[in-house]
């Protein structure tokens, strides 16, 4: 790929958000992924979510590993610092970055190869530590950049482009995230922007480890009959448990809902999630029931989407470590160095 600059000219009347940016300010360089790639839709959803949330682009740090999905941070939020790290290791780099400056928003973008195979350990441990982040796996069941090998999320029995059936059990990242204590778990489909954008917005406002599994078909290597990650397959098997309306802490709630069909969840920052129930009795705050429900529906062949689980009482790694409110990277020597008098006392204790 070569660097492609987008023209900077734009229509002067384009709408600005509350912090004065137009949507274009949240874009990156032109994508070099294949035309029709699900990942580009996810990038567009991230752009939309950040613009709508009035986040200043430079207050986001976007981190990724290696693979097609991990290339995408170049294609959104061009005014944010980005870090394309090593394969499967985005979670540790993000954890360290987050420790250094708790004031930024951390967006981790990964793929199923990056997170479910080589990086499974780091995925697991970043979730169980409760790193305050949005962790998006762009899940296509296949290794795209190396041309079509099965990934660990490919369903057993699903077929490769060459017609070979996968004999290994799939790795269920949603199930794992729930077991590992993620406090926000969602699944969506790259082709369903209406579902994905509010989900990303809610995840950004969530304090703690927010995990989103986005089924994102690979048009080059995994969009054929026999694949369970193709556009057609996911459209036919998608069972949404709820539709999410995200209401910003600063906004008034104006929409009326009929009683009984809506669950409201207030997050730490005061933002309200309104979930219009599509599945009867689905309670996204009951982790045990959620796990049971997902296992049942998965056995029935459904791809369950929606905001699957949220813990409104969530906490994050900084809270667990009891770190100071000021970002660690802004502490001065006077706050870090105990000085020579203290050192002399230490010397005295060592004699």
């Amino acid at each position, binding site marked *: *790929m*070569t*660097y492609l600059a987008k023209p900077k000219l734009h229509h002067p009347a384009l709408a600005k958000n509350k912090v004065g940016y137009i949507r274009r300010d949240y874009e990156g360089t032109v994508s070099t992924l294949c035309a029709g790639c699900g990942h580009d839709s996810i990038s567009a959803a991230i752009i939309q979510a950040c613009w709508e949330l009035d986040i*200043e*682009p*430079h*207050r986001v*740090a976007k*981190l990724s590993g290696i693979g097609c999905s991990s290339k995408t941070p*170049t294609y959104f939020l*061009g*005014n*944010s*610092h*980005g*870090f*394309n*790290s*090593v394969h499967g*290791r985005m*979670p*540790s*780099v*993000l*954890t*360290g*970055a987050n*420790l*250094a*400056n708790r004031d*930024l928003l951390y967006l981790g973008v990964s793929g199923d190869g990056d997170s479910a195979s080589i990086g499974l*350990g*780091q995925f*697991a*441990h970043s979730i169980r*530590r409760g790193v305050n982040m949005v962790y998006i796996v762009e899940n296509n069941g296949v290794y795209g950049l190396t041309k079509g090998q099965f990934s660990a999320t490919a369903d057993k029995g699903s077929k490769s482009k060459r017609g070979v059936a996968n004999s290994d059990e799939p790795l269920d990242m949603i199930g794992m995230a729930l077991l590992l204590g993620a406090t926000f778990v969602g699944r969506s489909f790259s082709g369903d922007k209406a579902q994905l954008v509010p989900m990303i917005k809610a995840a950004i406002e969530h304090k703690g480890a927010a995990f989103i599994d986005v089924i994102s078909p690979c048009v080059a290597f995994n969009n054929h009959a026999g694949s369970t990650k193709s556009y057609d397959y996911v459209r036919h098997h998608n069972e949404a448990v709820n539709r999410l309306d995200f209401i910003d802490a600063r906004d008034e709630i104006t929409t009326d809902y009929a009683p009984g069909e809506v669950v409201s969840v207030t997050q730490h920052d005061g933002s309200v999630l309104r979930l219009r129930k599509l599945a009867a009795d689905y309670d996204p705050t009951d982790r045990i029931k959620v796990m049971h429900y997902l296992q049942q529906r998965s056995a029935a062949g459904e791809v369950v989407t929606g905001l699957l689980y949220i813990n409104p009482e969530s906490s994050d790694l*900084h809270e667990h*470590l*009891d*770190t*100071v*409110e000021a970002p*660690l*990277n*802004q*502490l001065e*020597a006077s*706050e*870090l*160095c*105990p*000085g*020579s008098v*203290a*050192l*002399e006392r*230490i*010397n005295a204790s*060592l*004699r």
Partner: protein
Amino acid sequence: MIKRIEAVNDFVVKFANINGSGSASANEIFARSIMRMGVPVSPRNIFPSNIQGLPTWYEVRVSESGWLGRRGGVDLLVAMNPATWASDFEEIELGGYILYDSSKPLPKAKLREDLNVIGVPLTEICNAAYTDSRQRQLFKNIVYVGALSALLDIDSAEIEKLFSEQFKGKEALLQSNVNALRLGRDYAVQNFECPIGLRVQRSNNVGDQIFVDGNSAAALGAVYGGASVCAWYPITPSSSLAETFSRYCYKLRIDAATGKHRFAIIQAEDELASIGIAIGAGWNGARAFTSTSGPGISLMTEFIGLAYFAEIPVTIINVQRGGPSTGMPTRTQQSDLLSCAYASNGDTKHVMLFPEDPTECFDFTALGLDLADRLQTPVFVMTDLDIGMNTRMCKPFQWDDAREYDRGKIMTRADLESGRDFGRYLDVDGDGIPYRTYPGTHPTRGAYFTRGTTRDRYARYSEAGADYLDNMQRLLRKFETAKSLVPKPLLYPAEKPARFGAIFYGSTSPAMEEALDVLASRGIHVNALRVRGFPFQDEINDFVASHPWVFVVEQNRDAQLKTLLVNEAKVNPTRLLSVLHYDGTPITARFIVDQIAQHASARTVVPLKRAS
């Protein structure tokens, strides 16, 4: 008649214990009491990869002259572990001493006739004094310290004072330790002629020196150097470094107003994650480090290449142990020089610092954090088990309150606002070091993409050969700049003109200094140079060029420093003679002297006139 060893303030006591028997703190009290009498000591733990049951040793060298290297040989063995008697006895010098628990008879067949045997019925004494089985075991150690205090003429008031410091506020514990000490002392006084031939005599050779292990010193150096993020994974012999960093932080880095922490410490899931966390924090502008040992470095290698190529500061403290693979996890070596110098796929070179003792562990860790920020690259502090896990007498720590952290080339919001051109990999002043911005600095300027792939000077992805070359050559310029920043080598000039030179580094230092002294007394004069950093400075070339023969003294099999000297400093390899010690024990002056003396006699050039 057995000729017994007679020595004042110059002998070696070795304690042979069983791991988990509670001997460690008693043995350390013994060593400290001698230091409190103004006599230098250097203790060493020789311990197994085990928690309970296997043999463990604690060797204390008492040296009025202040030689802190391992001497070799033993003058007094405190033989608490029958399982290792046979091999322990072999180490004792002719006419040496054994103190053993005489509650059970010593098998005569195993004893050398030249040894002086001192039997103290430790078990019987403790069984009579205590009813609790754990106390009976633990106080045996204190009872033998008490007996030793009489036998070696150690002022027991110093020991009691140490107890009172250790058990401050715990009166019952203090009293029971003092009682046990007196039980042992009384028994020795009543049953033996005290002191024996070995004796401690009050002196004044300790001065203001402190007594500390290298891991604690490095941990404190990290606190003083401003590290706020530490990520680590448990591995011997480095674990205590991160644990001590945590303890110091809880004492020294708590925000007084809120009680909150000015630090973040993560015990990661493995070494890959610990270096990843440190790199993420370094990228985002916090000072970060990880501590590990050789196998951890192997795991971190991919990430180290990323930090080199993407130019991210990170400090890595490698407490080296015996390799390869799991190797000798509880023994010392200097065998990771090459794996650290070139860690990564592709062409890389990394900055290394070689501390000689805890004082330099403190200094070099704080310096390492500065250098990592200045050079935007990984910096290795290459300590080892011998320095890291043994309590060592050393110069007190010093800190200049006027010292400021060198955060390196950071472009601020104001810089960006003023319109300064920002290219993340742009060398604006010729030292090979580009400017960086912290994430979140400016709404529209200064953001860039960090990656391990090739890019141009403005951090834009590129697969063009010219961009790649430009970047790789700049990284070489940066490494050249590092030469002027790492500590220079230290010259130890011989008192008389010397044909031989010797190069050494790290924990070899105390043994080498003693060896130089012994060699000089034998008429072999050697100029020595202690290497303290990599990349190497020109002083090293000059040193090699000015001696026909230069010994390179190392604690590894493959002469790793010599390889680096030939490869990187381009010194003449035919002048270099390796002295290599790598059985896992710390190198001794005796070993160095023997090796150098042999080489020297083989290379003594006799003038032709006299030869004929």
